[in-house]
């Protein structure tokens, strides 16, 4: 690795013109990327990191974007001042880029091989036949099994992780000297994330590329970056080698970011859930953060799920003899005590959301029973179903999508009260104000519309709406996953506080192991629709027994560069599919009790 910068950005300024005003996104950012290194641009949403990446590639439409600055020198040329035609020869050729969402990055109606081959045709002057052969070589390089066969498949036949590999293959096809990766693993599951990080790093070494890695995740930074630039409000607040900054962060903002990253194992030795330290008080002793025991273990379980199965699709018919169905949830059993949080963890497609949705009856259970306070709610309808929904409420992942954009948040929170005819309009209003206060929002916010709130505030509104009916159980489906780390910490703290005050139970569905460790009393790990391991939180995290649980834990990035590489052992394999032929019956499962309440599925 030489010290010579390949990309030298000086005093970059980006603004977006909107309604006659110029809103600055990046204010005088300088950094340089050296040959063959991985530099991370880190910050929370809106800090200008993505705008920076796109400005360097000149992908931002101007207008509305306004880009200025001293220079962005790349191989002796100033990217900020090249013509569009000159930029076209650089893009995809000398500097490439991959994006966050692999599901939407690839053209759905073009064969993946052709999408890669396009780069060779465009930049290397190859004919299509030669380019397609090269494309197969690239697919092989990013370790897609059976590359030659898969090249003529369309993107929808690939999983998210595989599609990100295809995108990477496309980006590095022309052997660029710089790869810009904009949150390339944010949309992926942890085990897939670990594989993609590993891939980027090994390709970076083999091809001697420099990588500009844009992320909000300090864990990922510690895993991959040689140096880092921390951004806040469009400016660099701190930069240096990753080791140095993690060892001794000088700026308060950097310290907050690092401390806000949930660390696996941070809870060793504590029995109860624990709040995140409040902002600016990172050094709060754990004893102050630890929650009191809220679980009422001696009472009857609030909810008991027995042998629940949810299957989708696949009715056989006259011309549909070869029906198959998705066994989303298979023979799942668990219970939750009043005041207890059970976390349901696993990767996308494992059936954790389907389980949650079956409990609030948004999915129809195919088999099994769901006992709410002793009464089976699996088959109820009409008034019974309505009464049940007062006791069980749900919060979703995307708070913007789950609020009506044209309804004031006050009306949204009051809606359940009105629908269930609990309160008249006037007392509903009073209740709304109480609820807003309960989730830490101001009463005057009731008349505003959802778009006037930030992501974290919107999720608080969704919590307030769920609380309106005074439920005993809240199913929280990835409810904090889309939030920035500092906001995530606040919303989690609020949920813990509400549990203490109101004695709520949570079914906390998440793929984020570190948050799960903080909030839950017990944890159930799901894989391919089945629970493979369930038990007290301390047991699952301290003594994971099922190979899948162990793999999941190993894949979580550790925000500590000195422990880099510990997650290398993650094997390259995809989540298998829960699609089964019609009439498939799952094998009888046997569970071991390895410790009190800690059950592990026997292999087989």
């Amino acid at each position, binding site marked *: 690795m030489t010290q010579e910068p390949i990309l030298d950005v000086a005093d970059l300024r980006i603004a977006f013109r909107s309604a006659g005003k110029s809103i600055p996104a990046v204010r005088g950012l300088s950094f340089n990327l050296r040959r063959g290194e991985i530099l991370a641009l880190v910050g929370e949403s809106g800090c200008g990191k993505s705008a920076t990446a796109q400005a360097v*590639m000149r992908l931002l439409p101007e207008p509305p974007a306004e880009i200025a600055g001293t220079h962005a020198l790349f191989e002796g040329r100033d990217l900020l001042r090249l013509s569009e035609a000159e930029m076209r020869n650089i893009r*995809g050729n000398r500097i490439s880029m991959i994006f966050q969402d692999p599901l939407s990055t690839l053209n759905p109606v073009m064969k993946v091989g052709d999408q890669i081959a396009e*780069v060779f045709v*465009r930049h290397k002057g190859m004919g299509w036949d030669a380019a397609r052969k090269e494309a197969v070589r690239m697919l092989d390089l990013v370790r897609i099994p059976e590359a030659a*066969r898969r090249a003529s498949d*369309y993107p929808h036949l690939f999983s998210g992780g595989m599609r990100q590999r295809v995108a990477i293959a496309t980006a590095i096809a022309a052997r660029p000297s710089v790869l810009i990766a904009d949150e390339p693993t944010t949309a992926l599951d942890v085990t897939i994330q670990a594989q993609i990080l590993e891939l980027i790093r090994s390709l970076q070494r083999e091809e001697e590329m420099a990588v500009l890695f844009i992320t909000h995740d300090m864990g990922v930074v510690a895993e991959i970056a040689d140096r880092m630039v921390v951004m806040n409000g469009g400016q660099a607040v701190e930069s240096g080698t990753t080791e140095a900054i993690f060892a001794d962060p000088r700026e308060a903002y950097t310290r907050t970011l690092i401390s806000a990253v949930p660390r696996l194992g941070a809870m060793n030795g504590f029995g109860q859930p624990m709040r995140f330290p409040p902002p600016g008080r990172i050094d709060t002793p754990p004893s102050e953060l630890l929650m009191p025991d809220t679980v009422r273990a001696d009472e009857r379980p609030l909810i008991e799920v027995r042998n629940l199965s949810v299957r989708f699709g696949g009715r056989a018919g006259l011309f549909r003899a070869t029906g198959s169905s998705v066994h989303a949830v298979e023979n799942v059993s668990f219970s939750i005590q009043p005041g207890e949080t059970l976390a349901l963890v696993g990767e996308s497609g494992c059936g954790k959301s389907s389980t949650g949705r079956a409990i609030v009856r948004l999915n129809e259970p195919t088999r099994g029973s769901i006992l709410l306070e002793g009464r089976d709610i699996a088959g109820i309808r009409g008034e019974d179903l309505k009464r049940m929904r007062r006791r069980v409420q749900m919060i979703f992942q995307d708070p913007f999508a789950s609020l009506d954009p044209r309804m004031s948040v006050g009306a949204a929170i009051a809606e359940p009260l009105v629908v269930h005819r609990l309160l008249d309009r006037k007392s509903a209003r009073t209740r709304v104000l109480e609820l807003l206060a309960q989730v830490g929002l101001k009463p005057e916010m009731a008349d505003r519309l959802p778009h006037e709130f930030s992501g974290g505030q919107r999720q608080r509104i969704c919590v307030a709406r769920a609380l309106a009916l005074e439920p005993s159980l809240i199913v929280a489906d990835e409810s904090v996953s889309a939030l920035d780390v500092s906001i995530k910490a606040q919303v989690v703290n609020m949920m813990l506080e509400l549990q203490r005050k109101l004695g709520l139970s949570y079914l906390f569905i998440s793929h984020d192991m570190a948050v799960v460790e903080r909030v839950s009393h017990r944890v159930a790990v799901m894989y391919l629709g089945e629970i493979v391991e369930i038990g007290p939180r301390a047991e699952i995290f301290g003594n994971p027994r099922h190979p899948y649980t162990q793999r999941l834990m190993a894949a979580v990035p550790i925000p500590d560069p000195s422990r880099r590489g510990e997650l290398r052992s993650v094997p390259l394999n995809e989540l298998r599919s829960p699609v089964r032929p019609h009439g498939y019956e799952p094998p009888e499962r046997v569970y071991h009790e390895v410790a009190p309440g800690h059950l592990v599925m026997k292999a087989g």
Partner: protein
Amino acid sequence: MSGSGGRLNGAINTGIFVLRRLVHVLPTMFLILTVNFFLLQMAPGDAVDVLTGEAGGASPEIVEMLRKEFGLDQSTGMQFLRYVQNVATFNLGYSVGYNGHVAPIILERIPASLLLMFTAIVVALIVGVTFGVISAVWRGRWIDNVINVISIWGFALPLFWLALMLIVAFSLTLRWFPASGMYNVYQGHTGWAFVTDVAYHMVLPVISLSVYYLAIFSRITRSSMIEIFGQDYMRFAKAKGLHPARITLRHGLRNALLPIVTITGLQLGAMLGGSVVIETIFAWPGMGRLAFDAIFRRDLNLLLGILFVSSFLVIIANILTDMIYSALDPRITLK
């Protein structure tokens, strides 16, 4: 699921799909036939009224005799049964007005109609999609505004009015194009001369018929292209360094075609209706004008036959649309 095995599977799937859809055609056609039959029964007057009216009246005995001869004296139920029986053997009955069997009369007219409609659809698609892409690429500029004005006109102008104005302007005043017919009967052209003669006669009817669809295709293309411009894969295509023309056409338009195919399929039936007006105005010897005549002559059998054949054409066109759609979109498999 790729390579030769995939292609073979694909062919088998398509085969099964077509077979299944064809099985569905039968009950659909029966339903259409039933509804049409009873709807037309509700209309006052019958062919005998028209025949005797044209002859300047007839005695009740002769009217009675004619009704008996045409089977119009029987109950509606009996008439229906007999009609269904006939249709099942591909006999669409006897046309009183044209003095001949319905089926050959219609078959003779189908090619002219299909030629007109197919040409109009193709013109509307080519021009409309081009307009749509241009206005999406340069949205907000003058060219977009011009195209928007044209498509609003296209929506708003009544079909018959546009056709009449075209005749006034280009046939009567400028004398560039003929105002009626499909070919010049006096010249007796053959070979290429005949083809150009027909093309020459087609210009005005095709323009009249296609303007409305052109406007629709232009709007749909514009809005779906604008939506697609915001997609991540378009940004990724740009990040590959591709030329804007390739990004717009190969990545953008290729995806925008999907909704256009859907709309085209839906509009085919409406176009049959439009062709009645156009064929009548331009004296085009197609099914549309035949339908118009059949209505005037209370020629129930002929009208029923035309409706029957038209609905069959629409159903076939919809099956074709679905097949084209699945060929364009790899995510759709025919079921």
